[in-house]
């Protein structure tokens, strides 16, 4: 039981969020990823204008992710106590940023289907 196990991880996630919510979130994440891959294939190129907007949204995603974790845990910036805490905060921020960027890019691509409006 001390080895890393995929089954255990799934079990902990299910307990953390509830089975329904966890798998719903997995489905949503999978759908967004699929939609992202779909628009990349459909457009056959990265739209740099959409990518720029996606990049601009990254700090927002980072801040939201960090604040969300603090909100659900009775904690704040003053509780960062050692290097690993700073790293964890950074990891949470990066995950939030990447998630937000993918979301923003995908939503833009799905809403504005035409690639003719893109910069050359």
């Amino acid at each position, binding site marked *: 039981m001390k080895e890393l196990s995929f089954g255990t991880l799934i079990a902990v996630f299910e307990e953390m969020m509830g089975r329904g919510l966890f798998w719903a979130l997995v489905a949503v994440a999978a759908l967004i990823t699929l939609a992202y891959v779909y628009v990349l294939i459909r457009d056959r190129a990265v739209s740099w204008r959409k990518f720029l907007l996606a990049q601009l949204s990254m700090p927002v995603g980072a801040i939201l992710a960090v604040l969300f974790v603090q909100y659900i845990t*009775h*904690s704040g910036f003053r509780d960062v106590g050692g290097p*690993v805490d700073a790293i964890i905060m950074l990891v949470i921020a990066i995950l939030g940023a990447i998630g937000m960027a993918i979301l923003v890019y995908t939503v833009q691509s799905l809403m504005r289907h035409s690639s003719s409006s893109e910069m050359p």
Partner: protein
Amino acid sequence: MNLDRRQFLALTGGGLIASQAGGSAAKAQAVKTSANIVILGVGAAGTALANRLSERLDGARITLVDARKEHLYQPGLSLVAAGLKPPGYVVSQTKQWLPSDVAWVEERAAQIDPESKKVTTEGGTTLEYDYLVVATGLVLDHDAIEGFSLDLVGTDGVGALYAGPQYAEKTWRAAQAFSEKGGVGLFTRPATEMKCAGAPLKHAFLIDDIARRAGNAGKTDMRYMANNNSLFGVPIVAEKVRMLFQHRGIAPVYSHVLKSIDPGARRAVFDTPDGQAEMDYDYIHVIPPQRAPDVVRNSGLSWADKWTDQGWVEADAKTMRHLRYPEIFAVGDVAGVPKGKTAASVKWQVPVVEDHLVAAIGGGEGTAVYNGYTSCPLITRIGRAMLIEFDYGNNLVPSFPGVIAPLEELWISWLMKEIALKATYNAMLRGRA
């Protein structure tokens, strides 16, 4: 309770990528048997073991015996007693955790006869067994504190967070009043073995932090009443706590064991090496002596030469197997091993019992060994904790060496306590962690 690498990865989200699919295939094929297994207790240990045995055995008759219909997530009680979680946070229905193919006799065990391999319940039901697992937990001996009664909790500056979720909530009421008004706060612990020895320290740290945040640090006189000349059983942790107490202005008072309280006068009497000592208080947190239930103590399963006033089951420290009755195992709080009345201990002990029990059913010998691992997210203030992990030898055994320093107050340890711990505990109950 501990969070190991898996929970850490779960917490950071990286684990899904890092871990390999198919880990659950590690489960051995179910062993066919008609063995009759009785488990006394539906707490963390009994429930987790029942779930694991149910997976591992095909055809076994597994019977759980316990009258408790509500399951308590005990690691959450310290959060309830600090006003951070509602009482309902720690309560669930026992039934929801039990596998469908086990029988549950909803009565307390009244008698164990290890010679004829029978258990009798308070309702008069007699159950025979091939293998018996004693997982009854322990009893809080509140009556041993003269003048104390559970009715007092929440009034006259009396707290007792271990007694259950409602009492933990009442404890918070008394502690909150103290954190606002100030005065002398006494944080006691018993001289017996006890559930997580970090709990009284956590309560002291949290109430100090709450008073401090309210700007009342100057009004409180916090005193931690150690039962012996140390603040914790592991020397290096005891020294760290001593330093933290010094920094926070919490005075350690050594070798003071609570004997009685006079709630009207708000006065406590302690047994000390120099006789009895009286102390006035405005808030007192009472943790009573803790013992094995009478059914265990009267069964002849207890140690004859150790913990004679407490009656823990005479079990091999490495295998959790009874030293005189090889078909009996003890797991969880009631086990007479030198460490670990915590949920983390249960998490490590249960697979060991499972291994030896399943091996015995197959006619062989198990190989799993319990090394005394236990752990405690030792909260030092709201938002920070130290992840203390140690074994029988008082060695620190950090799960994340070089990453999470065990004696450092960290935010990540708090995140684990607040986010991942209950999920991991629940997964453990289901036999999946």
